[in-house]
């Protein structure tokens, strides 16, 4: 465990600042997207895409290509495939997610066993390595966070109608298919960027905990989305801080920080 004065020294390092700024951006994007997925009972999509991304990272490492450059387009395609499968199976989205996720994970394991020499790299994508995040990735994360925020708050009523009653929304002229695709693509991009933060096994936590916590706090639509993003950013800050202070793995600290915030919020609500 570091002394408080060491913490200030750590915060002055560029890699820590990059980790924090990148984490805030991914947290904000996950908070917003997570709320939308949560309301449509589709949070498993994040889990599935995380597993699938792991497979595509395995492929990239085997080929010697940049992992994110391979994982990004493949995960976007997988996300659109999940959407298509869910429609074809009349809304059995969880089955579609399960299929795509397990195939992705199996692919990753298979490629890892063929390659052999890159297990340490793959480990970083399984459990995240936020302190290794690069400046370009920080910018990309903020660009995605900005895009997600603009996308939702430009037409919040479309998203509310989409989340509450998609059949009614489509019948009354809201662009439901476009919203579905937009959400699928942005979720895939955010999940892939989130691999660096918490890894493919834990990335879904950023899509699940913040909305669930936000729903303990507020009951109005726009406020719930903002609260979800704020909760995610707070958990990233808390987790990163605890990780730096106590030298525990950052991804685990972020997930546990989210769990602590969730339980804490539930407890405060219950005490009132």
């Amino acid at each position, binding site marked *: 465990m570091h002394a408080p004065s060491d913490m200030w020294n750590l915060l002055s390092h560029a890699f820590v600042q990059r980790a924090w700024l990148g984490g805030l951006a991914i947290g904000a994007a996950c908070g917003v997207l997570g709320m939308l997925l949560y309301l449509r009972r589709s949070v498993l999509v994040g889990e599935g895409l995380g597993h699938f991304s792991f497979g595509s990272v395995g492929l990239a490492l085997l080929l010697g290509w940049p992992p994110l450059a391979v994982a990004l387009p493949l995960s976007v395609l997988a996300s659109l495939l999940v959407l298509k499968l869910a429609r074809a199976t009349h809304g059995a989205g969880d089955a579609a997610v399960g299929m795509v996720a397990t195939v992705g994970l199996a692919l990753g394991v298979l490629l890892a066993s063929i390659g052999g020499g890159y297990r340490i790299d793959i480990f970083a994508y399984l459990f995240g390595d936020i302190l290794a995040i690069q400046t370009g990735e920080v910018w990309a994360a903020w660009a995605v966070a900005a895009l997600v925020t603009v996308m939702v708050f430009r037409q919040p009523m479309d998203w*509310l109608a989409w989340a509450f009653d998609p*059949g009614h929304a489509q*019948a009354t002229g809201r662009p439901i298919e476009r919203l579905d695709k937009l959400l699928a693509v942005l979720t895939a991009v955010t999940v892939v960027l989130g691999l660096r933060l918490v890894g493919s096994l834990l990335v879904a936590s950023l899509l699940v905990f913040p909305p669930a916590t936000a729903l303990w706090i507020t009951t109005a639509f726009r406020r719930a989305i903002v609260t979800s993003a704020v909760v995610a950013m707070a958990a990233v800050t808390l987790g990163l801080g605890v990780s730096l202070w106590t030298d525990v793995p950052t991804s685990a600290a972020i997930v546990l920080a989210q769990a602590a915030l969730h339980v804490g919020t539930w407890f405060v609500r219950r005490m009132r």
Partner: protein
Amino acid sequence: MNSDVPIIRAVDLTVELDGTLALDSVTLAVPRGDYVALVGPNGSGKTTLLRAILGLVRPTAGHVEVGGVPAERTAPVVRIGYVPQADRLPMPRFPATVEEIVATGLPRFLRASDTRDSVRSALDQVGLAGLAQTPIGSLSGGQRQRVMLARALVGTPELLLLDEPATALDPAFRQRFYDLLAELHRTQATTILLVSHDLGSVGQYARRLVYLEQRVRFDGTFEEFCRSPEMTALFGEFQQHLICHQHDARPV
């Protein structure tokens, strides 16, 4: 838009869902300003027909037009109000107020002040003005159904499609609801297509009755229904009498 063109026109509409024939060559025309009750037993294809009219179900054969355009492209052409079956509950902590949910029935890109006024007026119509800021998840089933009605009414629809709208309503509001539909039909010439399995109840309100059992088995007024030998053959004399007798005993 040409008012001679039926607002709903289905021609030889056939829909198969997962290999089951839900609609079989249904041909139906609903002129503007008509008030039609679509009745039939459970599983007779009523909801499927409504969903095909809304463009939510793709025909296997035939076609359906609303306002003269294919159903899936209707939304910008005809203002539609729609109340789906009350079989899906929102999640208990769904983060939206009654006011927000009703506002989703309005056309897109409306000014905030117009939205507020319209929502207030629609909530007034269904007697829920005092619950505007209440979370939707905390309402009872009947109150939620009234919110769905307000959402359907808020955009001053030309065409109202109602799928078993009175199921969760208490008897007092049910009467008020049917009166409201009659008033909309009379004063604003709103076209109404009301789905119900309760033939006797809706027969007293609608101008026209369509009996569906995968195909259109009857299309006429309630009085014609009561005199129809085909319907006597279908229901049996006693059952038909009960339905028509209920009609005679309608509330004043």
